[in-house]
């Protein structure tokens, strides 16, 4: 059996957790690409190219950055918005982790218990998780890898995610801005965004703001 690689699916009816297949998390200053430990700088370049090359690049901000529970969270949220605008990428929130029944609204939200519904509905081919609690992110990343062909990336504030195809660790405002800078540099070098045209929806506590 060869070395396991964390690549886009659909992988299996129930894919294994990457950690159980021998994939280890990066140490500080490192990232991983498809399970291979790399210097963080290599991952910025890879992540930026992946997002620019996608038809439906999407960022999934989680509750740790959607809610202003401290000043750092607010700054991260601002940086994520600017990162999305620079690509451009859609923003679809994971506002919390409650199981949603009878169904979610997949064009407006993603839920860690059935994240594949949002991926399928919007035909998302590359995504970034950010601000999602680690356990919930790993659940969602593995389910996405199991049943969809979406290439997943994680910008984790803690130790990273081996269940993503690419993962940063110890993410800060500065690191989010560094990915934005990388995107802008690549665009100046002639790498064009392949994103299909879209209009970013807006949300309030009551739901979608029309118009």
């Amino acid at each position: 059996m060869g070395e396991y690689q964390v690549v886009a699916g659909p992988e299996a009816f129930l894919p294994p957790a990457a950690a159980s297949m021998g994939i280890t998390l990066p140490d500080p200053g490192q990232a991983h690409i498809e399970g291979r430990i790399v210097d963080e700088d290599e991952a910025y370049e890879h992540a930026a190219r992946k997002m620019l090359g996608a038809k439906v690049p999407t960022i999934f901000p989680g509750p740790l950055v959607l809610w202003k529970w401290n000043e750092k969270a607010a700054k991260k949220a601002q940086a994520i918005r600017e990162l999305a605008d620079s690509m451009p990428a859609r923003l679809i929130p994971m506002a919390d982790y409650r199981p949603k029944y009878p169904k979610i609204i997949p064009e407006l939200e993603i839920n860690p218990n059935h994240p594949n519904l949002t991926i399928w509905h919007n035909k998302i081919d590359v995504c970034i998780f950010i601000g999602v609690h680690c356990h919930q992110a790993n659940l969602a990343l593995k389910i996405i890898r199991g049943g969809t062909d979406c290439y997943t990336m994680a910008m984790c504030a803690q130790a990273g995610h081996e269940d993503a195809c690419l993962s940063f660790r110890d993410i800060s405002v500065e690191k989010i801005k560094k990915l934005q800078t990388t995107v802008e540099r690549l665009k100046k070098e002639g790498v064009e965004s392949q994103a299909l045209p879209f209009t970013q929806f807006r949300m309030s506590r009551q739901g979608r703001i029309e118009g």
Partner: protein
Amino acid sequence: MNKKVEAQDKRILVSENVKLGEKTPKGQTVTDPNILFNEVERTPSFLTGSEVIRAAIKRANLDVSVAYPITPQSEAAALIGELYAEGYVREYFRGESEFAVMGQCAGASFGGARVFTTTAGPGTLRAMENFPMWAGSRLPIQVCVTCRGINSPLSIQPDTLEMYYLLETGMLVWHAETAQDLYDWILGGFMVSEQPDVHLPLALCCDGFFVTHTKDTVMLQSDEYCIPAYDPYRSPVPCMDMECPPVRMMRDPFIMKSNYISYMTHASWQQEIHAAVERSRKHTLPIMNGSLIETENLDREILIVASGTAVSQGREAIRLLEEEEGIKVGLVKIKSIRPFPTEEVREATANAKTIFVPEFNVKGWLAREVKAILPNNERVVAGPHVAGGMTMPSEVIVDEIKKSLGIAGPRLESRG
């Protein structure tokens, strides 16, 4: 896959939110564990295992401990009560039963506290439902299991069968050989189990009486130091939140909603727990001197593979075999049972022709674990075993090895 993780340059990672060098209300200095464990001067003390648990908890910056009496852990639980009276432990009370204790520990941990408790034997079994709940809820509670007999007719004496029940709960399971292991791993255990990518409970097991009630020389740091406080903001799940999993699931389990994806969520959840056990490997290396096993003389054709105090008995048996018979035997001490050091044991036993696994339980669970991961596992001799509180004289191990070599020895049956 249980892949081996290399030890080089691994350090204990500490939350950036804790203030190293700060004084606690008791005047202890919050110290980087890399410095506390490796650089701070240690002096010898002659203590029982129970007293060692007290010594470790005094330096553990502990928020909550919940106690319930059951031999042989009762003394340790009472000594932690002394620490509460002295102000080193922030909250301490007696639960109504072991089941209640583990539920109360969960409540405290859900709320963001560092929690420690102790149990043993039938207490472990009575509390059992809580252990996979702790793991599934990503609660980094530490329970010191002072192993004893579990079945009727009751025995309060040493027996490690209860560890077998803990192996697939999703907890980390370590097996201390000595009081020194116990001391070092209580403190180090918090540092491992509270890492955000691990964040699991730890069952720190030791053999009741042999470790808890015998005195040993233990090297301790000054109690002027303590480890950094638990940082709940690094938790991989939100703190107590009635609307979100894991708490939401306890009142409204999504598995009850019958559709494919909710079952898959539960399956994925289980996989994530065991993935977190795997992730603990690299964080455990700095705590366990760079490896989940310790080895001696691996070039020998006969090896003893053991955990807990069976290692000590094996070590003495090796001395007797060499001095009295000229038979050379090597040793593998397994420190972590979950995660299991699969690759390490495979490498260590690669050249062995016969592998003995002495154990203090009737079923030989460690021998099963070893057999399950080794090629040519007919090399593994599951024994000798003792149980129910029997001692395992080193001569019993010597006799077993000599029998396998076809060497007649004195009969030991009359010693029983």
